[in-house]
């Protein structure tokens, strides 16, 4: 288990401040953040390489204040591997291990044992990462800290190794904290996600909550939400709104039926956001595009014109320009749909379409 409470550390001018989060024992945590946000500093502070300035850090329930790195039972893998070039690949893998046969078995599972005959200096970036992962796992650490450990692997190998690392971690009950820029990876791997910016934790929790319920428009945009609108939250005096199933239950829990006004658009949702200025976030995956109005319960339905179509492999992002009500300012809504769906709809720039999303797809922050 990794428990950080108001953790602080300083490296030159950079400061890690009030960092608090928990990754339960045997679970997989991911740290997301922009370049220079303090992700690696956080890992190095947990590993004991950078001294803590304040706060409390518990690893496996044990307070690690003043505990040197070699006594923390943590393994660290850097993006560039940092394999010891004066040692062979096998010596690297076995460096911290007491049980060499276990170290070799781990290397085999990760795919590093095939490299035993090679020179460290001749390994590619991806191969170095494999060896570094095996080396960190070989001493059976309690906590594994991974700094972009799969970034140099080809996509196929990345999927396999990612799956194997997670499997090994589960089997050995290793708590993992991994730094990644890849939101898909964060969603796939993480039981807990920690979003960090300028040395501070902006939000932490299950990844799907971070993605669906970002605490601020900045977080929403950082996590790739394309539909973020500034506007005004107004409570509706509707005791049983028809735009959410189970609305009465939500209202009984103190939520409000809400009308969100942004430019010329009016969105409906139920939530506990305070009335007044706020932001609405709708993930592109939640937006449906159709040639005709939907007959579903989606209360948020708008007619618009396709202004941009961007296809990246199996996904197509469609921007629909929605004309504001009563001559108000128009607003773009981005929808993510499969490329096949986009082709079936015969979408073209200038096509008239309907964009719709459920009231519960609107997150206010």
């Amino acid at each position, binding site marked *: 288990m990794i428990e950080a409470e108001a953790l602080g550390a300083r490296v030159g001018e950079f400061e890690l401040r009030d960092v608090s989060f928990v990754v339960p024992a045997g679970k997989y945590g991911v740290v997301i953040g922009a370049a220079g946000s303090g992700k690696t500093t956080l890992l*190095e502070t947990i*590993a*004991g*390489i950078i001294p803590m300035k304040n706060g409390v850090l518990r690893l496996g329930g044990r307070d690690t204040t003043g505990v*040197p*790195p*070699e006594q*923390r039972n*943590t*393994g*660290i893998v*850097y993006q*560039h*591997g*940092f394999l*010891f*070039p*004066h040692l062979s690949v096998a010596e690297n893998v076995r*460096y*911290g291990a007491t049980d060499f046969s276990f170290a070799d078995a781990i290397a085999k599972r990760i795919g590093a044992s095939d490299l035993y005959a090679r020179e460290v*200096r001749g390994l590619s970036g991806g191969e170095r990462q494999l060896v*570094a992962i095996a*080396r*960190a796992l070989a*001493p059976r*650490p309690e906590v594994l*800290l991974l700094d972009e450990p799969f970034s140099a692997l080809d996509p196929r190998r990345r999927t396999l190794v990612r799956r194997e690392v997670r499997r090994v971690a589960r089997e050995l009950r290793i708590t993992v904290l991994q730094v990644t820029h890849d939101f898909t990876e964060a969603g796939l791997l993480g039981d807990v996600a920690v979003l960090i910016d300028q040395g501070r934790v902006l939000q932490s929790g299950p990844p799907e909550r971070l993605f669906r319920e970002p605490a601020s428009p900045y977080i929403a945009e950082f996590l790739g939400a394309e539909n973020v609108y500034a506007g005004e939250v107004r409570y509706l005096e509707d005791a049983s709104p028809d735009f959410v199933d189970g609305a009465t239950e939500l209202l009984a829990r103190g939520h409000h039926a809400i009308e969100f006004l942004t430019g010329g658009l009016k969105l409906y949702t139920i939530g506990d956001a305070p009335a007044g200025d706020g932001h609405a976030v709708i993930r592109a995956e939640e937006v449906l595009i159709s040639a005709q109005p939907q007959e579903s319960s989606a209360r948020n339905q708008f007619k618009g014109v396709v202004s941009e179509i961007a296809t990246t492999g199996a996904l197509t992002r469609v921007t629909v320009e929605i004309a504001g009500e009563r001559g108000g300012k128009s607003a773009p809504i981005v929808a993510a749909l499969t490329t096949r769906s986009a082709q079936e709809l015969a979408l073209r720039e200038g096509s008239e379409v309907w964009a719709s999303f459920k009231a519960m797809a609107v997150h206010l922050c």
Partner: protein
Amino acid sequence: MRQAHRAASVLAAFCGSIFLLFLVAPIVRLIGAGGASGLAHLFTDAELRSALALTALTATSATALAILGGTPVAYLLERREFRGRALLAAVIDLPLLIPHPVAGIALLLVLGRRSLVGGTLLDLGIRVVGSPVGIVCAMLFVSAPLYVSATREAFARVDVRYEAVARSLGDPAWRAFRRVTLPLSSRGMIAAGVVVWARAVSEFGAIVILTYNPKVASVLSYDRFTSYGLDEALPVAAVLAILAFVPLFLLRTLRASRGAAAFVQ
């Protein structure tokens, strides 16, 4: 445009050639004029043999002491941040910048018979002034800064994250240094040691203040020049130049064959 480039290239080649000639010509002339007779003198001149043996012994001792004391200091200066680090680095470099006879005088003030340290050492039966100990002290004082500076550079080339990984794998600081940093910086440290040795061999100014007798090769060469003239000094000077040149040449050859900065990832 092309003509201007050509003229610039010719000018650069001319300046470079003159510069190289200026550096190389005296040494080539010295070894050419006295090298053969110097080597011949090795078989017949007992004083020269003795001076060379003393030079090699004291230079090796000074190098060993520089490695022993300079390595932790270089590591400290390179890897740890502390108040006064810049001042300490400047103080260590100082002997490189002061005239060497001045360095000798400074050492005499600390290690002379009438000084606290020198007197205490003498009471313990260790004579510094006028003994090989004084020669070692003079050599160490003027050449150790070179070792600290070059070794710092060698440590700087080894990314601190190698040590971080080693420590996360269970090595205490000292073991991580021994198993990782030391082997990765050893080439730079060996080079630093060779430079220190060569510098110690060629030292004269500080030694002559502390210990004129017994004579090291540089003092012998000076002594013969002032007492008997150029012809008598030449063989000694040439042998001394060869003695300093050989390890440096071997070092450069070794470096070139192995490639530079091989450990930088």
